[in-house]
């Protein structure tokens, strides 16, 4: 009798109990991805569209699985000795970022349905969906991971499929070149951050973020340099993922070379991966190094937004793919804004609140930027070169689409009627001002004006008189759904900004 009880105890201490509900969102995405890959073998050529709809449903299901988790924090894969130290935590921060990632992937999937259909056989459907879902699963795992090993695994699961997605177009030189650029620079960054992590592990003896936070304060004097190097190298890797300067150069070429929905996916989900990793490493694992990463991130933020916005400003509207190029450069600029509150978190005691502004801004940005990409995907169907000048007179041929794109662009610029864009910027500004980062706020203010110039130029173009006769085309249903969804989101958020801004006022962790 007693030996049986003992065996049970042993089994409990060795075999971890897994909270399947907590890990459901990333798991479902991964499983559906595998299922689609297998199903691809058995589905006839005529019915390949089915795969797309299965993937969309899978992403929707995994996003829905966030609902039961809302009521409280959950954690799983904990240390058997210490139940407080866990590898996977589903707290508010995790849920919000997972919602952002899965929602973003869902919208990108809706755009992809049409793109794949238009491309015919040039894009392999089964692989495409598998890669997209795997990447989304990795991106959803990342905000939940609370140890450096899981974090890096999640990061790689999110990025490796993305390289393949960028280069997925058969026989397209630009596509493969973009993929190679993206791959090489990304792998270098990963290698660097892995080295950093190993240094941190060497000096603290743990990979768990919360334990690192404790132990790194009492590192042996001899290991100080090693620890500091480790911290810097780790941050570099994550800065790359957010496309922060000077790790931004891959962005424009990659976005242009990739299929449009993949570019949309990277601009939102790729960024979410980068900054949520950065938040976890800085705010959770290394709060004691705030005086080092705070100023570094502040400088990085200032550089990133300036370089991004100036790059966007220099786009000529008649050049091929200038619309995507502009969105790419502006996404670099927006990444700069996203970094501001994280930098501010290094200066205040209330780091949670500051980081919340990043989350709120990212939610706004995800909705409107995906919306802008959706409209770009629509325009790309009739004018494949996707020049900004192709948008001239869009109002005449598609009034509603033009109004919606104008709204998205003004949201990105942060001017009414894009009220949510304005208040998300106000939240970021107030994080900076609150932390005493007046100079950064001023740099950002100047950047907002620069950004307004190119966003408004594009907006104004939409309402100019068209050059030729407007042609009427039927809009495919998935594209309509994506545009409508993002537009409704943008309008609702503009009426009730509290829906996303509340994250900037509550504890996330």
């Amino acid at each position, binding site marked *: 009798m007693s030996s049986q009880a003992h065996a049970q105890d042993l089994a409990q201490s060795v075999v971890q109990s897994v909270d399947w509900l907590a890990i459901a969102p990333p798991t479902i995405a991964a499983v559906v991805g595998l299922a689609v890959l297998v199903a691809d073998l058995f589905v006839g050529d005529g019915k390949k569209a089915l795969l797309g709809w299965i993937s969309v449903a899978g992403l929707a299901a995994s996003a829905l699985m966030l609902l039961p988790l809302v009521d409280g924090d959950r954690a799983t894969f904990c240390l058997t000795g210490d139940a407080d130290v866990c590898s996977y935590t589903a707290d508010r921060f995790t849920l919000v970022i997972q919602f952002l990632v899965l929602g973003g992937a869902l919208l990108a999937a809706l755009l992809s349905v049409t793109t794949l259909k238009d491309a015919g056989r040039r894009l392999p459907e089964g692989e495409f969906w598998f890669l997209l879902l795997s990447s989304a699963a990795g991106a959803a795992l990342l905000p939940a991971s609370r140890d450096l090993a899981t974090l890096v695994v999640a990061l790689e699961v999110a990025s490796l499929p993305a390289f393949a997605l960028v280069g997925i177009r058969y026989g397209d030189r630009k596509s493969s070149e973009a993929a190679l650029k993206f791959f090489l620079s990304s792998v270098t960054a990963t290698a660097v951050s892995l080295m950093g992590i190993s240094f941190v592990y060497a000096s603290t003896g743990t990979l768990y973020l919360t334990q690192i936070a404790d132990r790194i304060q009492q590192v042996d004097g001899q290991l100080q340099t090693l620890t500091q190097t480790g911290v810097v190298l780790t941050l570099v890797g994550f800065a790359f993922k957010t496309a922060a300067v000077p790790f931004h150069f891959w962005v424009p070429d990659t976005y242009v070379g990739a299929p449009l929905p993949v570019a949309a996916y990277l601009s939102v989900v790729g960024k979410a991966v980068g900054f949520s990793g950065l938040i976890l490493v800085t705010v959770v694992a290394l709060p004691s190094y705030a005086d080092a990463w705070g100023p570094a991130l502040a400088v990085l933020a200032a550089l990133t937004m300036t370089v991004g916005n100036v790059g966007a400003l220099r786009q000529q509207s008649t050049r091929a793919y200038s619309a995507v190029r502009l969105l790419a450069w502006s996404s670099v600029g927006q990444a700069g804004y996203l970094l501001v509150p994280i930098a501010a978190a290094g200066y205040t005691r209330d780091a949670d609140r500051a980081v919340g502004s990043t989350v*709120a801004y990212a939610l706004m940005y995800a909705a409107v930027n995906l919306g802008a990409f959706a409209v770009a995907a629509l325009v790309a169907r009739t004018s494949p070169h996707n020049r900004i000048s192709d948008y001239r007179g869009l109002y005449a041929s598609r009034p509603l689409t033009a109004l919606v794109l104008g709204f998205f662009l*003004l949201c990105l610029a942060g*001017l*009414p*009627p894009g*009220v949510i864009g*304005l*208040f998300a910027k*106000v*939240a970021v*500004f*107030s994080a900076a*001002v*609150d932390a005493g980062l*007046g100079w950064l*706020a*001023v740099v950002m*203010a*100047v950047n*907002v*004006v620069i950004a*307004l*110039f190119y966003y*408004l130029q594009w907006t*104004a173009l939409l*309402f100019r*008189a068209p050059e030729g006769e407007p042609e009427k085309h039927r809009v495919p249903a998935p594209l309509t759904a994506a545009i409508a969804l993002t537009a409704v989101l943008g309008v609702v958020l503009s009426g009730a*900004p*509290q829906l996303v*801004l*509340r*994250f*900037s*006022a509550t504890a996330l962790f």
Partner: protein
Amino acid sequence: MIDISESVMQFLLAFVVVGPLLGAAAALLPAPPGLKGKSPEQAVLRHGVTVTGAILIAAVVLALGFDHDQPSKMQASTDISWIPALDVRIHLGIDGISLPLLVLTALLTFLCALYSYFKMPAGPTPKAFVALLLVLESGTLATFAVLDLLLFFLAFEMVLIPMYFLIARWGGEQRTQAAWRFILYTLLGSVVMLLGLLLIGLKSGTFDMVALATDNDRPLTTSVQVIAVLAIGIGLAVKTPMWPLHSWLPDAHTAAPTVGSVLLAGVLLKMGTYGFVRILLPVAPDGMRTFAPYLAAFAVVGIIYGSLACLALAKQGAKGDLKRLIAYSSVGHMGFVLLGIATMTTTGVNGALFANIAHGLITGLLFFLVGALKDRTGTTDLDTLAEETGAALYGKAPRLGGLLAFGAVASLGLPGLAGFWGEMLALFGAFRPADGLSRPAFLTFMAIAAFGTLLTAAYLLVVVRRVCMGAIPQDSPKLADVQTYEFAAWTPLVALTVVAGLWPKALLGLTDPAVQQLLAGGTR
């Protein structure tokens, strides 16, 4: 004057702010059956007149229901939480300072809508024109009605996009450049202003203007006040516009359509000076005291600079544009307003508020008249108009000429008309500035500003002589005189200019108690 229950007043104020927005959305939809009118264009222009008319009626009822015995008390106030995360509240209310501006805005927009109904500016569809006009109205009215710093900023920004499109689409020559200049200048100013507003809000713990003006729980340190006044002041000064941040204004006015010019000068500029009075004076008095001498100095330079620029433009052979001339005269007039505010005395601030309203009425009228002149002759170039001897408007179109002369003498501050009181009170304020401000400096400013009034008189009389007088050549084409719809649009402005000039107490009685309260920082 008449007794209206508080809840009706609240509704009216909310309606005044939100109504134009709903109207703008409705303008974009196709007209419902029964309201189709003769053509879609006519229907939507009529829609604009109806909506702005309804707003004007609501604003007038608000003014009637306003308790004139307690103009310093916030009335018709609504206070609802909107974005708790940023502590933004939908806090609306009017007192003696905002009420006149609210009514002026509603009136000018209505007159503009009425004028456009008969004389649509050349450009794309009237549908968008009406929608933009209504959004513009909503933004301006909201600026004067909100009592929350961030909401004020939102309202301040809301006018940018509509005004940009009004200039860029329905404007005259070089409109694109002028529109860009307008929006980039004002946006750069307003994001800097946002930083100042955030600083005040975060340091004091509230964004509520009423609480900030009365509550002394967490007083702002002088250094915070100085930074905040600098940041907010720059934003407001660009809008006002204060010399040397004015250079967007002449271009914008020259390129804008008549209606755009009227609203820009009549209403939008007031948002800047209103911000000085409503936010900076009560919330950051210490910071304001630090900058008051500089503000006054810039204001006085603006007065002289504006007048000299006008004199240069009015000269024969200078190829001066009438619209540009009136724009520069606005820089001078707004200089008086800023001088009044910089004195930080009740007299000066009352004068500033009075001059605000007077400038809105008179300059609005002048822009209407010049617009009408352009429609008839096809040009606003003084030299082309006047040729050798003068345009002889008195002979060709006596009523139009008479009205133009009236607008000019009202603008130069003839006693008995609206332009007189505000500038005189501003000068009086400078004669005895608030404690802590250097009196000799302000006496100097007063003397220079008084000299500026002489220059103003000079260029306006030159304009009258060159445009209205002169010999009529035998073969000259006849100009159409003032039409009925033009009378309808202009008479209210003329009448109010005379009323405000003869009965200044009607306005000062409203503003004075509120200003006293504001400067004393007491409870409401």
